[in-house]
């Protein structure tokens, strides 16, 4: 989610002010009084960046109603928050707020806005717009995704305007993920307040609105939207960022985004030079690598993604009968299965070699809190066999595995049909478990049926599925807290069923109560060790995100975190010849 909103800035505000005093351009000085100076190689103004977005395009221009990345990827160019996440480092950096500070007890946070930031229609952005935006966040009639992260122990933040350029937030308790959640897109009060008061905010700025009426503060504004074909953006001439030479960003005049629903066609368009940049399917990366030098483009590894793929066993005593329940709740059984997961083959067969094994619930992409040295389960069927023996399972003369009471070990393994990676993981696992004498009925089924099983009926044995993630572990509370709805192996518990789940509940709560990352890391480290030992989710691999960019696109640094290079769209420039 935050990846969609990611937008880049990179230098400290003090330096920014200093440099801008030395080298202001007349145009910039007239408007933005607190510009940000980008620490990037100096480029040239002008040009158009052409790219494609995979899918069917945006579903709404109303950021507060946007539910998926096809909309937020578009609106992320147009709207901004007080803060944003650096697309390279995932750190929180200033955006519309030039700086912030918090009281000693960590409960009162003050944000100072840049002065003279203009909306695309020329109005100045002030604290009133910020207050208005948080009114929207906490309006129960607006089903937005921001409120969830800004509700602490069931309570909202208090927010108030101090003066034209200052807003203050008061928290019910210390809440470490605050900065991750507080960068909600700021909306123009002067255009939307009346509609909101009339209870019509949810009808505003739908996909049928003339896109020229969509007004934000971002580096680009939409000038044309042709359904199922393309979106054209034009440069915001009053944007608040400069390069070190004092040139106002963005460098580019236009963006042309083509909506393409086929990855094969995206690839053809890239090869034909119709688009300048591509996020290719991993299967094509090797082929592209070979022609890159002669065609004048390069391939960039954006690193591992936040998305995970894992195997989960159902431990819900209300729906799983014995003897299955006793197997699935047995740690040794789960560990044995973990030893039977052949990650190398998964990487080669399902991800064209472009993935990394994942051992910890906080994957390597979440740099700040990832613990690399948790307990690992390298592919080893012998080890798996030993663990099963230790747990009382025995193989009969027929080669089949039986538990201590003589029950044949057999279970159903489901995943959503059509997901090639998960289908591959399932077939490989079935094969390896068969060698251990376990009968696995592997069946890819319809996605919606799978979701119903996971969230409503709970009638399943084992499932291969994945979840999205982000740099802040606390956003996973719906998965890890024992009362969470996505606590897949036993959701919505009144009391934690096991001691280790109770411990995870505690760690997850505590970790949000300190602002110091070193303190927080201790809690998350213990959490990662605990999960790696108990294996409620048996992680498989983290795919890498790869990008192909023509060499004439300068300053391009696509990353998996930012889902490409659009986070830095104001820094890119085109060097033809």
């Amino acid at each position, binding site marked *: 989610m935050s990846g969609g909103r990611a937008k880049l800035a990179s230098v400290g505000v003090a330096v920014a002010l200093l440099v801008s005093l030395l080298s202001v351009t007349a145009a910039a000085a007239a408007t933005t009084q607190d510009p940000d100076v980008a620490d990037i190689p100096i480029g040239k103004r002008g040009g158009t960046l052409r790219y494609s977005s995979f899918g069917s395009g945006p579903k709404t221009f109303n950021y507060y109603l946007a539910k998926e990345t096809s909309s937020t990827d578009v609106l992320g160019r147009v709207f901004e928050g007080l803060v944003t996440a650096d697309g390279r480092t995932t750190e929180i950096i200033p955006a519309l707020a030039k700086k912030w500070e918090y009281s000693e007890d960590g409960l009162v946070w003050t944000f100072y806005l840049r002065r003279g930031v203009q909306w695309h229609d020329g109005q100045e952005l002030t604290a009133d717009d910020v207050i208005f935006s948080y009114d929207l966040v906490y309006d129960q009639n607006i089903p937005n995704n921001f409120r969830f992260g800004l509700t602490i122990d069931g309570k909202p933040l208090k927010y108030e305007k101090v003066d034209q350029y200052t807003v203050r937030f008061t928290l019910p308790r210390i809440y470490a993920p605050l900065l991750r959640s507080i960068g909600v897109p700021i909306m123009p009060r002067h255009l939307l307040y009346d509609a909101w008061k009339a209870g019509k905010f949810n009808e505003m700025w739908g996909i049928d609105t003339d896109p020229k009426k969509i007004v934000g503060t971002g580096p680009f504004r939409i000038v044309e939207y042709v359904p199922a*074909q393309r979106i054209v953006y034009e440069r915001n001439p009053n944007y608040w960022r400069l390069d070190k030479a004092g040139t106002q960003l963005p460098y580019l005049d236009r963006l042309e985004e083509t909506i393409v*629903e086929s990855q094969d066609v995206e690839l*053809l368009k890239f090869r034909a030079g119709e688009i300048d940049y591509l996020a290719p399917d991993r299967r094509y990366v090797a082929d592209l690598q070979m022609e890159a030098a002669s065609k004048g483009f390069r391939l960039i590894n954006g690193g591992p993604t936040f998305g995970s793929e894992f195997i989960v066993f159902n431990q819900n005593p209300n729906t799983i009968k014995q003897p299955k329940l006793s197997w699935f709740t047995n740690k040794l059984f789960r560990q044995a299965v973990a030893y039977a997961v052949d990650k190398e083959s998964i990487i080669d067969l399902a991800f064209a070699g472009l993935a990394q094994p994942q051992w910890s619930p906080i994957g390597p992409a979440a740099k700040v809190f990832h613990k690399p040295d948790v307990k690992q389960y390298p592919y080893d069927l012998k080890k798996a066999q030993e663990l099963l023996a230790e747990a009382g399972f025995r193989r009969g003369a027929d080669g089949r595995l039986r538990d201590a009471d003589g029950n044949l070990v057999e279970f159903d393994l489901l995943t959503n049909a059509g997901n090639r990676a998960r289908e591959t993981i399932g077939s490989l696992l079935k094969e390896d478990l068969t060698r251990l004498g376990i009968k696995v009925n592997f069946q890819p089924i319809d996605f919606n049926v799978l979701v119903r099983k996971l969230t409503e009926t709970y009638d399943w044995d084992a499932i291969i599925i994945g979840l999205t993630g982000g740099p802040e572990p606390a956003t996973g509370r719906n998965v890890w807290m024992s009362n969470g709805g996505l606590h897949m192996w036993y959701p919505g518990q009144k009391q934690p069923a096991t001691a280790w789940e109770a411990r995870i509940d505690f760690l997850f709560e505590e970790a949000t109560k300190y602002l110091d990352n070193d303190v927080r890391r201790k809690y998350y480290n213990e959490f990662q060790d605990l999960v790696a030992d108990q294996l409620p989710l048996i992680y498989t691999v983290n795919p890498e995100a790869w990008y192909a960019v023509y060499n004439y696109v300068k300053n391009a640094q696509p990353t998996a975190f930012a889902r490409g290079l659009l986070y830095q769209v104001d820094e890119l420039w085109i060097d033809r010849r």
Partner: protein
Amino acid sequence: MWRYILRRLLYIIPMMLGVSVLTFFVMKLAPGDYLDLLRLNPDVSPEAIEQLNRQFGLDQPAYVQFGRWLWNVLHFNLGHSFNYGAPVSYLIGTRLLNTLLLSVASLALAWTFSFPAGVYAAVKAHSTYDRVLTFAAFIGLSIPNYFLALLLLYLVVHFNLPLPVGGMTSSDFASLSTWGKVADIGRHLIVPAVVLGTASMASLTRYLRSGMLDVLGQEYVVTARAKGLPESRVVWKHGVRNALNVMITIFGFELGSLLNGAALTEIITGWPGMGRLVLEALRAYDYYVVMGTVLMAGVLLVVGNLVADILLAWADPRVRLQ
């Protein structure tokens, strides 16, 4: 005849009612709904999902949802899309003409080629020409459209042809002159029209050939030949004229499917038509978009058949409408 037309048009009402009841409840029978994708997103709170559930009316029994939809339709309101939050009529409006354009273009292409090819194949039945044509038609029938579309686009890129890789308009479309716009759409139309055109060309040629062969085997054709009429008059005056019935019936069917769109071809060639919209809506359980398009396609099918019947009566004095 007018009464006949009126009666046929009135049939549309109960028919559409039946079609929409079927469509709606079949969709409802499929497990899952639009919100399922959100249910697995850790960023979306259960409260937000509950709120959307109420807002979309998904918490109501199916017959209540259908009743509400029907009430809206009777007031010329096709409802709102869950996925886009926009009126269904707006979504269909953005795609309708595009689909029509593509269908008409591919239809025209198919008929211009198939008509002479099919007639000639019947006249020269079992000749080398006929065999080659039959062979080509079977190839055409067996190549999947999406594959042909990808192949054509690949050739465009590989041979650097001055054709766009997908889409319907260029990015500078808005600034072009009227003729420039027509030419631009024409350039984009070539690949999808050829893909869809060749697909129906293959079957059409076969239909026309067999229709024509039937006629050519009739006794009045033998009589005409026996009278010593020139072969061209036999073929055109007695053959084609009588084979028209078959062709008109086929044409009526094709008229009815003008708006159906061809999802896979549209997806590959980036043509912004109805097929893409419907497929996306079906996948996302966006009920009212599916219902809206099914209604339109249903009405068009009935009207297409009606037009075919009228044409038939006009072309063939033996057919009477009543």
